[in-house]
């Protein structure tokens, strides 16, 4: 009833290829955007911005980058955290070398550094696949984090070898640094993430996206029909690392405010991988659902017992937290290995048929 698609005719190819062939999808997206742009900013507290809204957006973007590589092009990577680090350090150097540069430009440029590093570490994918490749990307993970620690130039010879985000103004408003207000940071991140998402949707459903998918599904067949595997794989590494690098720059500049090398170590990579897999590989929407789950879960676990009047010690909460995230990951994989995005697809199917399922 709600989701009735009967009566929506497509009269041209353009209409058939539209981003939202079903009108209700567009409405739903409109409602979500309304919430994101209007309702949340009106109601959210500082804590909600810092612990929920901003991290959800940034993690979704990072997972989106990984998903392009793993979900669309079929190349498993465990080095996401380090590529985020490349983006962050590149942005830091750009901002400190050219203080006049607009932050948006700096973030957009820093993505290219991480893309270049991503392609370099993507080269082994031309020779190896699967878990061998996954371990090879770990080489990037460990080497880059080591480099962040040892290469003092990256942190401007900071005594504690950490980067600290200065106050950065854009059009007279402080957008980054300790003086920035959470709401400005939120809107900044939201706009960047929306733009990147729109671009990725169009890339993945266009020609390049189809090439990636064919490589993922069967590389030999793809090669036989004339696809250049090298180009396909390296372009996937390039686009993926670019998005991940931008996410990394946002991660430090618009959320964390400071970073040391260990921040980009392997737990971050796994976190992003969880989001991509629980959300659903090969789906754009899934990254958002996964990020909401992974970011919100610990916050809820931390606050619910106190809210309903049970006092347990914080370390106990932490243990239960770790345990339940582990259990949830296993549970989700068993119930729906294709991820949350698949859940939504099923619900949508049901809604289209409802209330006459036969």
């Amino acid at each position: 009833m709600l989701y009735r698609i009967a009566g929506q005719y497509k009269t041209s190819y353009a209409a058939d290829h539209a981003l939202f062939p079903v009108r209700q999808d567009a409405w739903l997206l409109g409602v979500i955007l309304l919430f994101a742009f209007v309702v949340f900013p009106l109601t959210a507290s500082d804590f909600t911005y810092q612990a929920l809204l901003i991290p959800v957006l940034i993690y979704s973007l990072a997972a989106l980058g990984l998903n392009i590589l793993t979900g669309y092009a079929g190349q498993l990577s465990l080095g996401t955290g380090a590529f985020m680090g490349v983006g962050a350090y590149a942005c830091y150097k750009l901002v400190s070398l050219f203080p006049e540069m607009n932050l948006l430009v700096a973030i957009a440029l820093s993505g290219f550094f991480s893309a270049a590093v991503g392609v370099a570490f993507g080269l082994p994918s031309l020779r190896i696949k699967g878990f061998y490749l996954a371990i090879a990307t770990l080489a990037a993970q460990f080497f880059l984090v080591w480099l962040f620690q040892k290469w003092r130039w990256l942190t401007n010879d900071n005594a504690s070898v950490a980067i600290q985000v200065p106050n950065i103004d854009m059009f007279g408003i402080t957008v980054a640094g300790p003086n920035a207000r959470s709401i400005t940071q939120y809107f900044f991140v939201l706009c960047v993430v929306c733009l990147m998402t729109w671009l990725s949707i169009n890339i993945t459903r266009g020609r390049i996206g189809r090439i990636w998918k064919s490589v993922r599904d069967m590389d030999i067949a793809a090669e036989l029909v004339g696809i250049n595997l090298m180009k396909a794989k390296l372009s996937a590494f390039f686009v993926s690392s670019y998005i991940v690098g931008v996410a990394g720059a946002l991660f430090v500049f618009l959320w964390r405010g400071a970073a040391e090398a260990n921040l980009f170590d392997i737990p971050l990579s796994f976190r992003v991988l969880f989001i991509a897999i629980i959300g659903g590989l090969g789906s754009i929407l899934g990254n958002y659902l996964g990020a909401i789950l992974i970011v919100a879960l610990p916050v809820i676990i931390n606050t619910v017992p106190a809210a309903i009047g049970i006092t347990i010690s914080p370390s106990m909460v932490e243990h239960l937290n770790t345990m339940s995230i582990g259990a949830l990951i296993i549970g989700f994989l068993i119930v729906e290995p294709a991820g949350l995005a698949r859940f939504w697809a099923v619900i949508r199917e049901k809604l289209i048929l409802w209330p006459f399922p036969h």
Partner: protein
Amino acid sequence: MELAYSILVQPFADMVGAPDFLIQVVWEGLVSGVLYALIALGFVLIYKSSRIFNFAQGIMVVFAALTLVGLHERGVPALLALPLTLLVMLALAVAIERVVLRPLVNQPDIILFMATIGITLFLVGFGELIFGGENKRMITSELGIPTGSFEFEPFGGFVSIEQGDVTTVVGAIVLVVALLAFLNRSKMGRAIRALGDDHQAALSVGISLSTIWVLVWFIAGVIALATGIVWGARAGVSFALEVIAYKALPVLMLGGLESVTGAIVGGLMIGILEKLFEIYWGQPLLGGNTEAWFAYMLALLVLLFRPQGLFGEKIIERV
């Protein structure tokens, strides 16, 4: 020129100049290598029989060692705690098979891999909940492991070899020989290898998948316990031990995911080479801590020329 000298000549001059030190470095590398090999062996066994890339091997080491120490702390005599810990590892293997593996049969590799990361997180939380997070002393002397050290004085210097480390090496050799004998001679062992060669065929001749899986995870648990005891004896038992799992991954790349020989040779090779590189090149030229990535870079280089690893049994996953 100066740079070339410090890369190509100086390190070797140092090695020849202080041979006692070189021996010590190689020995330390060898001991680490034995431990890497042990962990890699746990990975290989599980991968061979079930195509699962078991990330949880690292946490199993911590969990086994913690159980052993925790039982002892609660008043169980050391020699009784050992078999009890083995029982716990068996229970863990059964639980993992029932709860995690059975429902996930036939899922893509990456899903199973993620599931083992889930197991890792669960065990971290569970272990800390029960045993607490503080660093614990391994009950070395209670288990009858000697703690002194042998000292030699070759070439006018000195080399000190811990008796505990000697025990590690000997114990690991015994364990590996026993394991190889089991895999090659016993009926169960052959069943494991059959499963590794061809799932369908193995199932059709009546090999029980779930029994084998429990068995394999239990063996991995035993290896984990052995690793935990010897590593814990070096620096205490705590959750920081978990990171040694990352040390075993390049060993797998180098040796091949399915090769028992590869795991052993690869482990020893990486242990010794990374120590030599760190001492003679890493510390003087690169600011140290190169052990974090050296093994990965080495494995990556090798893979570019031999994609199946040094001992890969067949050309798998080759592009």
